[in-house]
């Protein structure tokens, strides 16, 4: 029960925080670009709306920039911003003198970040749907997409992308909890992301925990064939980073 109260408390703290806006903006950004694109090039829409792979192509296009760039960067920023709330406001000491376990504090904060990610996926999916439907309703010659929405594929992909960004969340969380300076987690995150892009063609690139979202996308569009179960690896990294982060957090000598 204490965890729920703690989670509610943590959830309140993110109000008006840039991380909350990032989730909303990030969720609708790519779908909005696609929506505008469809409206600008509306002549192609009538043909596209009757195509049997309409939704799948839209889904693929939506993930193109999202999987490789926007999602990892969004996760890096959001995670760092959430932990930065306590550093910036000098409130760690207040938080650590509240009657709650350190374990509860650690996991409720992490849960807020994870739930925010789920929120992002939900908004992104709504955005993709709107990006598919709205232009068809606005453009005279186009009709409501004939093809059925491939719910299973969407759901499966959502789940995989979510698992693939978990190691980024955990490592960013670990770094952000240790350093007061906001630039440290951001700098590390960007450096690791650049590294992940650089190793896309390397045979052992899967060892870098920030590569999995990109790998999954490349595998989806048929540009990469992976011999390792990247989602299992992603989850493994997540568990490992979370355990290390937890140990470092509870054994910290100074708690504010």
């Amino acid at each position, binding site marked *: 029960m204490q965890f729920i109260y703690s989670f509610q408390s943590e959830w309140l703290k993110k109000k008006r925080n840039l991380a909350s806006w990032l989730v909303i903006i990030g969720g609708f950004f790519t779908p909005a670009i696609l929506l505008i694109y469809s409206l600008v090039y509306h002549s192609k829409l009538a043909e596209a709306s009757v195509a049997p792979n309409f939704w799948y192509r839209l889904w693929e296009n939506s993930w193109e920039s999202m999987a490789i760039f926007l999602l990892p960067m969004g996760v890096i920023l959001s995670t760092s911003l959430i932990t930065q709330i306590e550093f910036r406001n000098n409130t760690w000491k207040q938080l650590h*003198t509240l*009657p709650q376990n350190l374990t509860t504090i650690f996991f409720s904060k992490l849960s807020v970040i994870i739930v925010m990610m789920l929120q992002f996926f939900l908004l992104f999916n709504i955005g993709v749907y709107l990006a598919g439907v709205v232009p068809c309703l606005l453009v005279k010659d186009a009709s409501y997409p004939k093809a059925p929405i491939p719910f299973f594929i969407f759901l499966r992909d959502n789940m995989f992308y979510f698992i693939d960004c978990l190691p980024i969340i955990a490592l960013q969380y670990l770094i952000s909890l240790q350093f007061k300076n906001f630039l440290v987690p951001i700098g590390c995150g960007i450096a690791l992301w650049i590294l992940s892009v650089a190793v896309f063609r390397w045979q052992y690139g899967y060892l870098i925990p920030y590569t999995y979202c990109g790998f999954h996308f490349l595998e989806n569009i048929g540009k990469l064939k992976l011999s390792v179960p990247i989602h299992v690896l992603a989850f493994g990294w997540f568990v490992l980073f979370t355990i290390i982060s937890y140990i470092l957090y509870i054994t910290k000598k100074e708690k504010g």
Partner: protein
Amino acid sequence: MISYCIETENLSYKFSESEPVLNNINLQVPQGSIYGFLGPNGAGKTTTLRLLLGLLKKQEGTIKIFCKEFQANRIEVLKNIGSLIESPSIYAHLTAIENLEVLQKIYRCPKSRIQEVLDIVGLSKTGNKKAGQFSLGMKQRLSIAVAILHNPELLILDEPTNGLDPNGIIEMRELLKKLNAGNKTTIIISSHLLAEIEKLVSHIGVINKGKILFQGTLDELRWKQMHNSVIYFDSNDIDKTKEIVLANGIIPLSSNGQLALPLIEKEIIAKLNKQLVEHGVEVYQISTSQKDLESIFIDFINT
């Protein structure tokens, strides 16, 4: 037997291998008291208070709060403590009400309590203004509201008047007095200025270089003040005056122009005066110099 709200035994702490910041601190804060924890900057006040709240990991000694060992009963003890350590700890992007809601979720106190504490600290009309836009005084008052939200039995306040104007200091003092008198809240308040808390506290602990130099009631400190008083005899013949004083079994403290004597009863002063006159000494003035509490405090930290 006095019941102590906070009791530490041989509490020692060092940040690195260097000299200890705290050295065998035996703090005793009686239940229902307002305990002024005095010491110059860097004396070890904040470190002690942070140890009491579990913000620093205890290295040596024991800490008992509400007669319970702190570490073993951390959550239970913290339920009844409100604190303000150094600068205000508030979420700048949230309003006063939202800041209190964050804590209300944890303390599970009634929502109506938020308005109550805002009324108490005079911040009920801040509306949608974010705490980051508050003046330092308002932030400090919001921090007090945060500390008293759950009606704690013990308030630990580290220099709560820092940055407050004289009016703000008076308001804060009255608020703390009210809390202590009305709710029987025990308050430990640290400061480096005796004058600032002299009118507020019932007990005082003086710390310097990590050691407790004095601990007791304000009356005990005042008695010490009396004890440190000096009586000056100004006469035309200092040697003769000294001779008569010594003949009465009193050892003068100094004789630099005037003869300084330790505090003696007024009847003895009259007797000495009479004897001096009888021996032809002209007594110009008999005066008393009392050390104020501030100079006693300075003496403490300079010894």
